[in-house]
């Protein structure tokens, strides 16, 4: 009766992290339970069908799951939950996708009524061909992803045993000179490789690029890397050239400006989803080479059309990389069925504890609006309200004051509204990077920032992702995309790259008090709070009154 785990009837698991058996318990439940919240004392995991099937796919059986729950639980585990676990897990593997010597791909069952049931579904019917015998149905190889997706929705996930094509071989080596893969990166690479395909979840700044590079070195094959934007593509390229045996001419960039197809090609989501006259002209990129590996960077942002193409690529190994599997559109199950299950996950705080990402101090600064601003806010049109309170003058003043306080530190100011950013840039004499800034200009500014020539940079949401700015130590968020949780996580990620001097990073979120801005901020912060990044809340007056940085940090 003294286990670290409490099993709730709503299928959440509460893990007391300070318990002596907490680490063992975490290892036992990690294969099947999703870490939902990781604040300081009690972590919450959730047992979902997806997670249980994930565990089945990884070779765990219901017995192990039940045993883990029962043996670590402090209180008796509700019998109904155990029964449900066993029943859910038993649903996996009744159907499997196999290679058939004569018919190509077949859907095979060990339980005929299940096959009957799914074949009667309207979603499945168009995806299957003739029934070879009572247990086997032909599936067109191009429907492999679609049928997996549809079967998952029906609650009968298929085990994909049809294997992968090796793709065109291409030698890739990691050059581990003066650096080494971190242990968790190696775990992530191994986890992915054994599973065949899947998603690796690592915090921002924890070196996801190297996990990609490591996977490429395992695959030894031509690789297609999909990234969010051109700057990110260039960073990938630079990183690959630095860390692997690949030379510049082996890595191609496929973006709005350049269309190179090389053994390792880095393409942007934007160019892939460009639509002309109703067709996606750049889709042939997927077929242009016999790719052995496809890497999806920032998989939580994967645009819907790319999901569709991915469905056709089920015979290729797929690696998804992300900091948060939270998708604002709720398509997590599509990621599971099309890219693959989560193969590796590490709580942010754990990696911080190992020293691989910088510790961060998150502060929410509550700004009191002036009476005039409050009146104007109260009278603003509903659709204009957020914009109004997010861009008030009071916020600008406190932002400037924060910048001055951190003078000499590499500071990023991140915001949503261009007018506001322009104004801030003007007041602070800092350059502004926004959508219309050319790629060359962006790179020039980022380089200057990295080199320390520039200490303050104002950026719009173009810099949310994949911009490697290791020396940024202070980030000030002045406005955001409403309540987007993953955006908040990404923005914090900008300052989490470990600092040369082990310096603590600081993340400010400037919020207008008693407005909708405050509500959105609370929603945005939830993910990070659940990852253990507790926000301190300060009044703007205290910030202004604080004599110096020491005082500010010591609150």
């Amino acid at each position, binding site marked *: 009766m003294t286990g670290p785990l*409490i099993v*709730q009837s709503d299928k959440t698991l509460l893990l007391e992290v300070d318990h002596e058996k907490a680490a063992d318990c975490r290892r036992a439940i990690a294969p099947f339970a999703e870490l939902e*919240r990781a604040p300081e004392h*009690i972590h919450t995991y959730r047992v979902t069908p997806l997670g249980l099937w994930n565990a089945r796919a990884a070779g765990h059986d219901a017995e192990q799951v039940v045993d883990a729950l029962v043996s670590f639980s402090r209180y008796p*585990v509700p019998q109904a939950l155990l029964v449900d676990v066993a029943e859910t897990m038993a649903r996996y593997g009744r159907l499997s996708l196999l290679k058939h010597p004569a018919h190509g791909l077949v859907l095979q069952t060990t339980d005929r009524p299940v096959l009957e049931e799914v074949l009667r579904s309207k979603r499945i019917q168009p995806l299957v061909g003739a029934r070879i015998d009572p247990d086997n149905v032909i599936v067109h190889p191009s429907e492999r992803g679609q049928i997996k997706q549809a079967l998952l929705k029906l609650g009968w996930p298929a085990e994909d045993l049809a294997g992968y094509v090796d793709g065109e071989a291409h030698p890739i080596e990691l050059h581990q000179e003066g650096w080494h893969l971190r242990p968790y990166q190696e775990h992530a690479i191994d986890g992915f490789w054994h599973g065949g395909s899947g998603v690796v979840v690592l915090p921002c700044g924890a070196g996801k690029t190297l996990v990609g590079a490591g996977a490429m070195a395992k695959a030894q094959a031509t690789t297609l890397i999909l990234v969010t934007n051109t700057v990110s593509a260039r960073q990938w390229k630079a990183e690959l050239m630095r860390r692997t045996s690949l030379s510049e001419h082996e890595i191609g960039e496929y973006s709005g400006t350049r269309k190179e197809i090389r053994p390792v090609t880095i393409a942007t989501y934007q160019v892939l989803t460009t639509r002309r006259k109703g067709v996606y002209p750049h889709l042939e990129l997927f077929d242009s080479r016999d790719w052995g590996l496809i890497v999806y960077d920032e998989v939580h942002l994967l645009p819907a059309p790319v999901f569709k193409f991915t469905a056709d690529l089920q015979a290729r190994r797929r690696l998804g990389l992300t900091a948060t599997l939270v998708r604002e559109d709720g398509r997590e199950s599509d990621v599971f069925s099309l890219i693959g299950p989560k193969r590796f996950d590490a709580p942010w705080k754990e990696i911080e504890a190992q020293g691989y990402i910088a510790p961060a101090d998150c502060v929410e600064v509550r700004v009191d609006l002036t009476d005039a601003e409050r009146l104007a806010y109260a009278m603003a049109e509903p659709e204009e309200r957020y914009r109004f309170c997010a861009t008030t003058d009071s916020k600008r003043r406190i932002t400037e004051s924060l910048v001055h306080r951190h003078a000499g530190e590499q500071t990023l100011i991140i915001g949503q509204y261009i007018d506001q950013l322009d104004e801030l840039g003007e007041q602070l004499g800092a350059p502004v990077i926004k959508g219309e800034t050319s790629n060359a200009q962006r790179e020039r500014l980022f380089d200057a920032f990295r080199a320390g020539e520039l200490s303050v940079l104002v950026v719009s949401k173009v810099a949310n992702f994949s911009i490697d700015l290791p020396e940024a130590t202070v980030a000030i968020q002045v406005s955001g995309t409403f309540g987007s949780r993953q955006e908040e996580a990404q923005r914090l990620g900008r300052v989490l790259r470990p600092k040369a001097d082990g310096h603590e990073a600081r993340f400010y979120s400037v919020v207008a008090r008693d407005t909708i801005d405050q509500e959105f901020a609370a929603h945005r912060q939830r993910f990070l709070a659940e990852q253990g990044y507790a926000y301190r*809340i300060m009044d703007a007056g205290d910030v202004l009154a604080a004599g110096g940085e020491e005082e500010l940090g010591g609150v």
Partner: protein
Amino acid sequence: MTATSPRTLADELRSRSDAELAGLLRARADLLSPLPGDLSQLATRAGTRASVLRALERLDTFTLQTAEALAAAPQPCQYPVLAALLPGGEEQLPGALATLRARALLWGRPEGLRLVRTAQELLAPSAARPSGTGLGPTLAETASGISPSRMQDLLARTGLPPTHDPVSALAALAALFTDPARLGDLLAGAPEQSLSVLDRLAWGPPYGEITARPGPHLRWLLDRALLMPTAPGTVVLPREVALHLRGGRAHRELHPVPPEPTARAVYEPAAVDIAAAGAAGAALAVVEEMLGAWERETPAVLRSGGLGVRDLKRLAVTLDVSEPDAAFWLELAYSAGLVAADGEADERFAPTPDYDVWREQPPGRRWVRLATAWLAATRVPGLVGSRDAKGRLLAALGPGLDRGPAAELRLATLRLLAGTEPGHAPDPEAVARRIRWELPRRLPEEPRARMCAATLAEAELLGFTGRGALASFVRPLLDGGAQDDRAQDDRAQDDRDREGEAAARLAPLLPRPVDHVLVQADLTAVAPGPLLPELRQAMALAADVESKGAATVYRFTPGSVRRALDAGWTAAELHAFLAARSRTPVPQPLTYLVDDVARRYGRLRVGAAGSYLRCEDEALLDEVLADRRTDGLRLRRIAPTIVVSASPPDTLLARLREFGLAPAAESTEGAVLTLRAEPHRTPPRTAPEPAPDAPPGADETLLSAAVRAIRAGDHAALDTPRAPGGRTPGGRVPDAAGPPPRTPAATTLRTLQAAARSGALVRIGYVGADGLAAHRVLSPVRVEGGFVTAFDHTADEVRTYPLHRITGSADAGQ
């Protein structure tokens, strides 16, 4: 028993000991009420059909099979004969016979066993009621309607010598059929097809249908009495032949031994107890949550009794359980007397005062109360949502859910679990099979299986079992009801002791309540176990519940903090509460949240006032407030320049003027009202109706009708002198005898209208308040709006009759 064999059941009962008789009365409680006068009466009552049926329903399969075999055997039956009918059951037979004897279904010495006649009739095979044995009637019974010549014919065909009367013929045939060797010889000569017919009928049902011209193989059997006709087109296999074909067995499958409940899984007994205690704890939480919810929002009682479907759905959502489970918890609380209808005019369900008592008890006791209520309950929650024989929906807490055998079946099932090794979880199928063996006649197959499954499911929910095996702390509850002769008081005391023991055994297994929560920076608080009641109430007030179970996860939100402030907490109290109850340091965001909500809380104030007093000159207001004469106006200053009063504006105005002040009234828009009040007016009114003491004058038609009527009455009076002191309508109404006239409504209307115009007399049939049609003679005045106004000669006054009660009309003639 004495050496002489008893002649009747009563005789035998007389020879039984008191303990044996007490055993009989205990097993067949229906014999007790009313108390029989003597043993003959007891024997008679024990032989009534209803009582015997009740007794048979409570027999296990083998005892019932023994009784069936006995019913198929000749009476009185010798023990060896009976034993031969039940091959394989020799070992258990004495026990079964003892049970039958103890229940007074059987009497007589072993060389002359007799089944009580009613039981014999109920169990013996007959055409109307097939027996469990599948045997047919005896040869003698089938031969009752056969002609003597046919009898002799049968004798001749079977190769027996002719006899001189049917009785001896039948005896000869019966002797042949009960002699295996000779019957075997006879059957040896049978054609192949005939034998297959016999085989088909041998194990029952013994009846077959034949055509009017049966084939030669059937003829062969019919001619030898191996098949006997029962009705045109139907034949039966005589019992003696069937028994021969079966090798003497009364049943195809004899079940002398109850099927063992096989174990589905075996767990550590300690693990079972912990799992069951977990469920028991959850059960207490669910019942408390359910009744707690009904403290505030009491659902209405349907007019037909019970709880509405929507309320049940809402409850299921509140409790986060399925609807059938919600119905189970409700019925459980109802059976335990914790919830009931309040009996008001607008009847609603609410927790009972007993609930408050129950809530104060220690958890072990609370659970035992639920457990004992469940053990004894005859209400079947599984029926909620189904329809009764009349198609009415059965509602939770409503009528029609009681099923007599439910408690008995439940106890049988649980005793069965109690009989297995600790930690053994029996296979539910095996349990169902065993229960069927134990009580084969108690309920039809399907409801019994359903109740059995429901018992197992409910036992798991309630914590009687953990992972399918019976928990050890339940056993004392099931040991009860031991059949002994102790006094009622002793037994009640014993029950209390056993309940106390169960509670004591359960208590240490229940999760210990915790007195703290863990507050985290993401504004959640986790209670790592069941909270102490007052802490739970406080947390429920200050935070929203996010996840329930053994632990509870709370989340603090601005809304929840505001709720706490609304309930009278102050921010400081909240801080102190959190600091005291949180085992972890209270995170800064939570402290900030509380302060932030408290800062905004109550900045706007709302109150009621009758009028206000506004003045730019604060000194003047000071003066007004200081004036002692204004005490009665209940003035309160809410701002330097504003004073409110509970009095209406006109009073305030008047009083202030009395003090020599010169206030001006303001309209709702703030404009100064001119002081001259509008002249007072009532709402629109009509003038009163005059009320003269004479009736209003009649109109012309009425008058002429009255005159006509008076004349008509005069005519009548002239013809027949009026009897003194009263009217004799018969004399005045022409042709009043005979049935009242019946005409179609249209004709009636036409006649009446014509009479109203012409002033003629009309005779009508009128259905009075007593429902009987009577004659009336009218002089109609007006026919309108479905009424006829007329001078009624029968009553001597002007009356109004509704047309629909007039059966018809006829010309009254003169």
